[in-house]
């Protein structure tokens, strides 16, 4: 728009009814003063030169035309959202694992990792569950909470749990049979130290609550008469 107006534009041609103005085209020509503008410009309506268009680079014809018309797949810019954590799961909650090797064990929730999995620990001394990742869907959250405010969990993320990459060595025929009895992979010492550091603090909090240690050491199971849909966890 050319100039800012201080007052809103009042039409020179009020409507008689919608679609019909009060003044005819010739009357409006006179009212708008187009005759005066023309007279000022020597009988012709003034015309300004258009702004010069920015010069674009000259496009060369391509050197190579592909033989077949291959369709390009549509661009997918979807970024999956981080897994929503259930409101009942907060740091320090006691969870019941529902599947896997530690099925039924009651375990302390530490934090949610960037992949959406939950970082969880036994503590190891109490029930044998190490620092471990667990999916939210395979877990029941109880309403028992432990204070874990003093523990530093920054070093634990998904890369900490990634598998170690072994460099494969070429084996000769004789060595193939020997290699069957490779020694079992031992847990590296620094992971054991990490476990101890996290657990030391947790065990202190747990000892503060009576019978909580025995609770975490015991497994959960459904007994006769327990109705899961009526149980309050």
């Amino acid at each position, binding site marked *: 728009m050319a100039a800012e107006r201080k007052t809103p534009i009042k039409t020179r041609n009020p409507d008689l009814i919608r679609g019909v103005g009060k003044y005819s085209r010739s009357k409006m020509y006179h009212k708008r003063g187009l005759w005066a503008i023309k007279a000022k410009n020597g009988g012709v309506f003034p015309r300004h030169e258009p702004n010069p268009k920015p010069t674009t680079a000259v496009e060369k014809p391509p050197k190579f035309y592909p033989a077949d018309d291959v369709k390009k797949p549509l661009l997918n810019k979807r970024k999956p959202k981080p897994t929503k954590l259930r409101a009942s799961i907060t740091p320090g909650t*006691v969870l*019941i694992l529902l599947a896997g090797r530690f099925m039924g064990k*009651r375990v302390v929730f530490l934090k949610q990792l960037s992949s959406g999995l939950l970082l969880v620990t036994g503590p190891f001394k109490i029930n044998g569950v190490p620092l471990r990742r667990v999916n939210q869907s395979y877990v029941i959250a*109880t*309403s*028992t909470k432990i204070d874990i405010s003093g523990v530093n969990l920054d070093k634990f993320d998904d890369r900490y749990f990634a598998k170690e990459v072994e460099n494969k060595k070429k084996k000769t025929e004789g060595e193939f049979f020997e290699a069957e009895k490779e020694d079992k992979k031992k847990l590296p010492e620094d992971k054991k130290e990490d476990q101890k550091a996290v657990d030391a603090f947790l065990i202190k909090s747990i000892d503060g609550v009576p*019978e*909580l240690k*025995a*609770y975490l050491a*015991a497994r*959960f199971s459904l007994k006769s008469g327990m109705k899961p849909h*009526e*149980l*309050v*966890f």
Partner: protein
Amino acid sequence: MPFKRYVEIGRVALVNYGKDYGKLVVIVDVVDQNRALVDAPDMVRGQMNFKRLQLTDFKIYIPRVPKKKTLIEAMEKADVKNKWENSSWGKKLIVQKKRASLNDFDRFKIMLAKIKKAGVVRQELAKLKKENAS
């Protein structure tokens, strides 16, 4: 054999079914053969079918369709709440509610306590048996 709990004005009843399940209400008027006008300190007075009510042993002395204030005063005077909570029926309901709201940790603690108690009882029993046998 004769009936002991009658539908009368002032009879305290327990609601058995519907939105107000578990509430103690007072029969304030009888509408017809099947329905009563019923009131409680924390609800709007309304009609209820007798089939939804379970009569209790308690009765308070109120005029027919009393004002809410008179009803509350009469209930305080008769001490309905405490009498109800000390009756075996009322105590049963409280225990049921407590059991339903138990945490997983609470259930574990109760299990340990039961085992302990059973152990103590068994020890005493063994002692008594020994005394009796000798």
